[in-house]
Each structure stands twice: as C-alpha cells, then as structure tokens.
C-alpha cells in the first residue's frame, strides 16, 4: 500500500498489545488479511469504545488494508461507531413488532429521562441511543439492549427502573 498524501495530519495510533493479540488470533481464522478488517474494527471498538481516525489508520497499517477500503467497510455496518459514544450504548429496536407494541412511547420516555434521541449521547457521556433493526425478540416486544443486556417487554415506566439499576451498579462499582 502506498503512502497517504494526507492534508489533515491524522496519524495512526499505536495499537495496544491486547488489541494486537486479538487481531492476531482472528488472522488465524481467515485465509486473508482483508477479512480481518471488520473484526479488527470491532476489536478496537471493544477496547476503545469507538473507532477513531487514529484507530482506523492503525488497523489499516497493521493489516495492510487501504484506509479508504477500511473506511468503506466501517461506515457500511451499523455497529461500527466512527464517532464517540457514551459508556453504555442503548440499541433500541424500532422494527415493526416493537412499533406495534408501542416502542415509540418507550423512546419518548428515554428522551424525557435521559434527554437523548436517536444518534445522541447524554451530556455526561453515559448513554448513547442508537436505533437498530429488529432485535429478534419480537414475542417480548418492545425490546432494547443496553450493552449486552436485553431488556424486554418495555414500558415507559420501566425506563426509570432500568436507568436507576445501571446507576446503582455504576455507583457500587465506583465504591468497590
């Protein structure tokens, strides 16, 4: 790959040993490096919360995938974040079953409680709300995921409790 003639001056960052180890592991699973690009983006996101330009360039360099191609992949997929997100990401199902079961009122409750709508992050960087296609849990609609936790049969009222529970867990974590 050739050298970028860049005007912005963004430089690749150093990948961490953990990131490199995980990327190296993925490289054993696929016959070519390009296939690992998306995996590497996810790995970096897992560690950094999102994929910055510096991270993207670092992966590009490490895997020898042109930055433009990697960007093409990163921006194609819904779950690769090319902008900073909050500490917790709410994946909010807005597909048809959840819609029928009233997800819009839940969305309104989140807006009221946290002050964020789709694509927004709370001022304290705690939550980012992202709409997703059907989460495949339609018999429990409406549903949303907060990080890896699935919350089912949501009602506007339940939002308070869910947020409070995360706050408690967070506070305890800090105390410990």
């Amino acid at each position, binding site marked *: 790959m050739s050298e970028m003639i860049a005007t912005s001056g963004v430089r690749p960052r150093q990948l961490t040993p953990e990131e490199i180890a995980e990327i190296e592991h993925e490289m054993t699973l696929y016959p*070519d490096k390009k296939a690992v690009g998306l995996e590497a983006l996810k790995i970096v996101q897992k560690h950094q919360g999102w994929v910055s330009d510096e991270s993207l360039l670092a992966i590009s360099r490490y895997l020898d995938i042109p930055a433009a191609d990697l960007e093409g992949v990163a921006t194609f997929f819904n779950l690769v974040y090319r902008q900073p997100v909050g500490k917790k990401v709410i994946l909010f199902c807005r597909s*048809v079953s959840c819609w029928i079961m009233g997800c819009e009122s839940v969305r309104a409750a989140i807006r009221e409680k946290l002050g964020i709508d789709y694509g927004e992050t709370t001022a304290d960087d705690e939550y980012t709300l992202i709409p997703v296609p*059907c989460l495949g849990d339609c018999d429990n609609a409406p549903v949303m995921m907060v990080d890896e936790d699935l919350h089912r049969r949501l009602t506007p009222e339940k939002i308070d409790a869910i947020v409070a529970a995360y706050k408690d867990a967070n506070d305890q974590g800090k105390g410990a």
Partner: protein
Amino acid sequence: MVTNPLTKNIDMSRPPLDLNAYEAASGYQSLHKIAAGLSSDDVLQQVKDSGLKGRGGAGFPTGLKWSFVPRGEGSPKQKYLVVNADEMEPGTFKDRLLMEGDPHLLIEGMIVAAYAIGASVAYIFLRGEYVVAERALRKAIAEAKEKGYLGRDILGTGFDLEIILHTSAGRYICGEETALLNALEGKRANPRAKPPFPQVSGLWGKPTIVNNVETLCNLPGIIGYGNEWYHSLTKGKDHGTKLFGVSGKVKNPGCWELPLGTPIRELLEVRAGGMQDGVQLRGFLPGGGSTDFMLPEHLDLNLDYEEIGSVGSRLATGTMIILDDKTCPVGMVGNLMTFFSHESCGFCTPCRDGLPWVDQIFKDLEAGKGKESDLQVLLDHVDYMGPGKTFCALAPGATAPLGSGLKYFEDDFRRHISEGKCPYGN
C-alpha cells in the same frame, strides 16, 4: 418417535444442554452414522429425498442446492459451509431460539452439511447483537472440539471440519447469502450477481453452501431418524416441522415448532392465545417483514409454502406479525419502509433511491402532509422495485407489504390524506 426434533431439547428456563446431555438425549446420532460408513453421497441423497426446503425465507430445496457444488475428482479442494445466522428480518425470532436453546443441534447439522458437500471449514455468520447465542455457540463448539467431533479426522472418518464463529456488525443485507459472503471476506456487504452461484464460486471464489440455522437444525433428525420418520411429521405437502412465531397484540406471543401444514388458525388462536382483549385481527404478515399481508379470511389456510403462496404471500420465515384494528396499517407499512430504506446497501438504483422516496411519502402521510399523487408514486414503486428489476431481493421484499398494504388498506391511506392526519392518532 420424536415429533418436535428442532425444539425437543429446548427449555429456556435452564441453560442449553451440554454435549454429554445432548448426546444422552440421542444427539450426534447422525455423526455416528457417518463414522459408521454413511457416505457423503448417501447423505446428499437422503437430504434430497427428505424434501427439506430452506428455512431462511426463500424455501429452496436444500438437497438440490447442495447438489450444485462440484463433487469428486477435479473439483476445487477447498469448499465452505456458511451458516446464515444473521437473523434480522423484522418480526423474526426463531433462529435465536435454536441457537440459545440447543447449540449442539446446529453444530450437528453443520457437521452433516459440511460432510455432504465436502467442506472442511464452516463459518457461522452470527448477528452481532446475539450475544447470548454467541456464548452458547462458543461453548458448544469448544465441547465438540474437545470431544473430537470437530477438528481433524473426525472419529477416524478422514473428514476434517473446523467451525469458526463470526459475529457481524449489523446489516440486514447480510442475510442475503452473497452479501453475507462479501461481509465474511471483510468487504462491503453488497450482494453479488447470480450466476455464478455461491455453490460454484462463493466464499473467496470457492464452492460454498450458505444455509439458514433452522435448515441445518433439521439435518440431525433426517439423518438420525431417517426419511420415513421425517415424512411422517408433516400435516401438509411440505415435509418436516418448522418454527412458527407470532408477535403483535396477541395474548401469548411466542415461537413454536409445528408440523408444516398446521392451520394458521391453530397457530394464532391456540398457540398465541388469540387477539388481546379489545382488539380485532385486521391482517397479518405470515413470514416476516418482506411478505405480503394476509387477511382474517385466510386464517383457515395451512402453514404450507404452496398454500400461502396461493393468496399472493409467502411462508418465508414463518414468523407472523399481527396487525390489529387499533394499529395504523399505514404506520406499520411506513415502519417497514424506514427499515428497508435504511438497510438498502446502496448498490442498485431502484432500491437505493426508490425506498427513501417511499419512506418519505409515508412520513408525510403520517404527518398529514400526504397528497393524492403520492399514492400513484407508491404504486409505481411497487412495480419499479419488484422482482427482477433490482439487484437482489431486498427491495422486492419491501414491495410485498407495500403493495399488499396499498391493496388491502387503501381506505386508510386515503383517510390519512383527506383527514390531514393519522386517523389512529400516531
């Protein structure tokens, strides 16, 4: 004999069976049959004879699909099996149940399929949000490897199989098998032209079979218990059982394994407990977001590929979405249009540029800004984005609820325009 081969081990109140428990429940029989000398040709023949059709939505005969993979001398050495576990069809929640509830069933099915087509590497392309399924599958794969059911020279058969779990990063189009292959290769998940079909030139240009999770979960039973048993399962023309789901305003939404050919009414009224109090059935999408609406008058039809097809819809994923009389059909279709429009990969023109226009019209209709002429634009798009005109099946899928919605609920569309608002108060 077993009548619910797909879900017999599933009990969501406990963790899924581990390998030993799964085997104790007569699991991995098909693998042992292979070890005892069942040839890959035999497996292929048996699956062909079973009449199994793909459960991902398209309903293509599985054995026939496999038979297109080049076999024998001179065929490419490397072949791949890929599991389409990227369940993202709106209103569809069946594969999640199988993977979270009985991961070894899928692995056993994969072993059968890989053996039949001669694949030594299999990828599971799993939806990124399915973290519970991911954990269950990782554990099961590790157990199977440990036991020697995966790896090199499995049970002395000379057959090698490595299963690699790939988690995706969220994109409906990856459910399209060729788009999925591009995603696995680390590319943008645009679909590929067919022909050439993946069976000939698939993953990294090598012969590849892409099967849905549920399809593969049928295989242990077919090989383990035989076709006579398998053919006895059905109540209708198509063979086997299938997962059927119901979501929407019913008393008991859920997912059940039923014989194909079960009446729709039984699914809706017995299994799902009928409509919630205070609402009436207005219509339903029989198999996920890309199927045509059906009406209450169709309830006595059977859940069978052909029968559902006879009224212009498709059985597809078999997961039904219920429209009740208090829910705005325009809003429901509009919701689907937002989904399809956002999930278009952006490759071909009708899908990329047609869907956003349609979506925008729905937003205007809901906001009371709809115009009479918008309806013609919508109708034109049903034709324009239909089968054969787009690069893949995504936009034609969108035209299913759109076209049938316009046909069955025309008055609702007109009321949005004449009343200048959503009559359902959205």
